[in-house]
């Protein structure tokens, strides 16, 4: 490992620099592809580039990356035009147009490629590396051309960042404020084609879509800001390029391109799972928190109900008493009681006997208050019958925040009784005139 990360071997330096460069520029450009929901168009462009590369080799007879790039960009652009035409002028749907262009162009590329190979042209070896990438075999000349292209791409994205952001988000609005939307879209598409044409060198035709889209998709889980998305996507591109090169350095039989893609996918999967807020784990935690809140508040409410009936708010209550008040699940009840004692809302007198603390009484009042306020809101504002509101209030009492509670109190005028003529408990006695 240390051998690799000292970068003392010039070849390692070259290859790593190349893959990182390609990965980062594809990720940056790909952020816009992702935001414009054109991931599969990117895939089609990658496939469509192959015949362009082959034709430019057949015409020039050379494998200079700059010549091949020109052919690639022309073919990429042509495929875009054809896709556009098919989906807007015929009854074919967009996905059919993409699929048709992708397979036909790629088929043409394969036909030309095999024909070149069979013709035995001495110079053709290596052309098929476009199919699966040739990260490990990049030359100094390749890197020169790619860094040039990457610099141009970066410069253009930076210069037109705000315009690109706008046309990705709301092209109609962009047009209405007088932006040259068509020309900007043309520019953005050209940049995409360029990024794809160079990126192919790292991962190949089939996997190019991943280099473009996966970093942006992963970044989307971490941030809502487009600037941050671009930075994160570039970082993911860098990381996967770096470790992809490392893997194929330590195990030379391992292909670099597929490993870059697997690493990117791994980053995406991790993001999907652990990202704060949008991640699945965060949502599960939120739901677990909800369940805990509901469990505890229901127990508090049962205490309040028993106390209210007996006119002894902080009386000691047995577990059986709680079960009679409300059909709790056994495990949930035990767990909730433990949690409430720990939070200082309940006293545990002896095993199986509990009472509300002062804090617990306040909290139980709050929950019951919200329940009864919501019942009142349903009958007063939504004209629901009093015998139909209990079940909804059972759920919504846990959702209501202090702000919504304040709004409810204002709207209902600090009411004293709920629809079933039960007293709405306040922490301090209400002043009915307040509004």
């Amino acid at each position, binding site marked *: 490992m240390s051998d690799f990360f000292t970068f003392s071997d010039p070849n390692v330096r070259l290859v790593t620099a190349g893959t990182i460069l390609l990965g980062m520029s594809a990720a940056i450009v790909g952020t816009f592809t992702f935001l414009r929901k054109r991931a599969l168009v990117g895939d089609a462009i990658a496939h469509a580039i192959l015949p362009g590369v082959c034709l430019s080799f057949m015409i020039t007879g050379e494998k200079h990356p700059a010549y091949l790039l020109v052919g690639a960009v022309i073919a990429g652009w042509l495929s875009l035009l054809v896709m556009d035409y098919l989906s807007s002028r015929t009854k074919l749907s967009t996905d059919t147009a*993409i699929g*048709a262009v992708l*397979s*036909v162009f*790629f088929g043409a590329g394969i036909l030309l490629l095999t024909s070149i190979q069979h013709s035995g042209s001495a110079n053709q070896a290596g052309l098929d590396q476009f199919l699966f990438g040739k990260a490990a075999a990049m030359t100094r000349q390749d890197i020169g051309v790619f860094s040039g292209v990457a610099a141009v791409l970066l410069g253009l994205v930076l210069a037109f960042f705000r315009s690109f952001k706008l046309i990705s988000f709301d092209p109609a609005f962009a047009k209405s404020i007088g932006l040259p939307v068509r020309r900007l879209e043309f520019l953005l598409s050209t940049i995409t084609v360029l990024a794809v044409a160079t990126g192919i060198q790292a991962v190949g035709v089939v996997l190019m879509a991943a280099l473009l889209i996966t970093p942006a998709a992963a970044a989307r889980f971490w941030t809502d800001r487009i600037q941050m998305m671009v930075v994160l996507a570039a970082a993911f591109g860098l990381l996967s390029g770096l470790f992809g090169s490392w893997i194929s350095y330590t195990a030379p039989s391992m292909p670099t391109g597929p490993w870059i893609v697997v690493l990117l996918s791994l980053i995406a999967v991790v993001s999907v799972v652990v990202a704060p807020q949008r991640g699945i784990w965060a949502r599960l935690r939120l739901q677990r928190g909800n369940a805990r809140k509901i469990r505890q508040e229901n127990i508090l409410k049962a205490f309040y109900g028993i106390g209210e009936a007996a006119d002894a708010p902080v009386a000691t209550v047995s577990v059986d008493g709680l079960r009679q008040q409300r059909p709790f699940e056994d495990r949930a009840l035990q767990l909730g009681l433990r949690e409430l004692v720990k939070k200082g809302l309940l006293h545990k007198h002896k095993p199986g006997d509990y009472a509300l603390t002062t804090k617990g009484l306040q909290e139980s009042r709050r929950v019951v208050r919200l329940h009864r306020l919501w019942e009142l809101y349903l009958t007063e504002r939504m004209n629901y019958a009093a015998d139909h509101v209990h079940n909804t209030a059972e759920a919504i009492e846990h959702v209501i925040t202090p702000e919504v509670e304040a709004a409810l109190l204002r709207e209902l005028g600090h009411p004293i009784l709920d629809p079933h003529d039960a007293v709405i408990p306040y922490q301090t006695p209400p002043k009915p005139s307040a509004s």
Partner: protein
Amino acid sequence: MNAFWIILTGALVATSCGLLGAFLILRKMAMVGDAISHAVLPGIVIAYLLSESRDVLPMLIGAAALGVFTTFMIEFLYQKARLQIDASIGITFTWLFAMGIILISLYAGQVDLDQDCVLYGEIAYVPLDLWITESGRSLGPWPVWILSGVLLLILLMVLLGYRGLKVTTFNPEYAAAIGISTVFWHYLLMSAVSVTTVVAFESVGAILVVAFLIVPPATAYLLTEKLHHMLLLTVGLGILIAVSGYYLAVWIDGSVAGAMAVTSGVFLLLAVLFSPFSGVLTQRFRQKAALVPPGE
């Protein structure tokens, strides 16, 4: 004779793929078909390794499993992770395809598959893979038999399930309302696509599978206005493409799969240009005519 077997193989793949592809494109799921055809690769490699042979059955099971897994994963990213649909498809198939390539490199010695073959197959070798009986009689190439078997299954599915596929494709909400399970028909179609892909994979490669899934049905769609005509035309086009593609490949001396994909594109181009239904002018004319019932 070799030419005959190669063309027959192409036509069989074209027919199987075309029948399924017609429903895929009408469901706007062409790219899901593309994704599945790439994503079954690790399934094939794993099946190879586990069975250490080219037995058809483990391969079909491995592939069908991977195909269904692909649709699950796309659904999962889209529904549960709330990622947009195009990115869900893109991430899923590139990841699985990359895994497949890595597996091939890892077990290069044990797996008789190489990267190029994955993409464009080796249809030219089909005539060499003969089925020889114990008495030494040759029954023709293996792949032809297997592909015929799969085609038979697909024909059965389309004929028996015609109405179910039609109503769940045209109007899934209505189908669900009259009690027809849209989920069942969805997964039936996806499994059929996976199985077909795998069987066709070795002989024609991923790219021709995608071309046959999408291009002939798309061409037929532009040329007809009835579903059963579209299916018949797709089959006819497939055979035509197989024949003309083969001779194009011979003429240029290139990949047969690539040539067939190119000829399918030529037919699509012709349909786009000369279809009696989809020209801008004909459509305008039709809209006018529609306001007057025929015979008045």
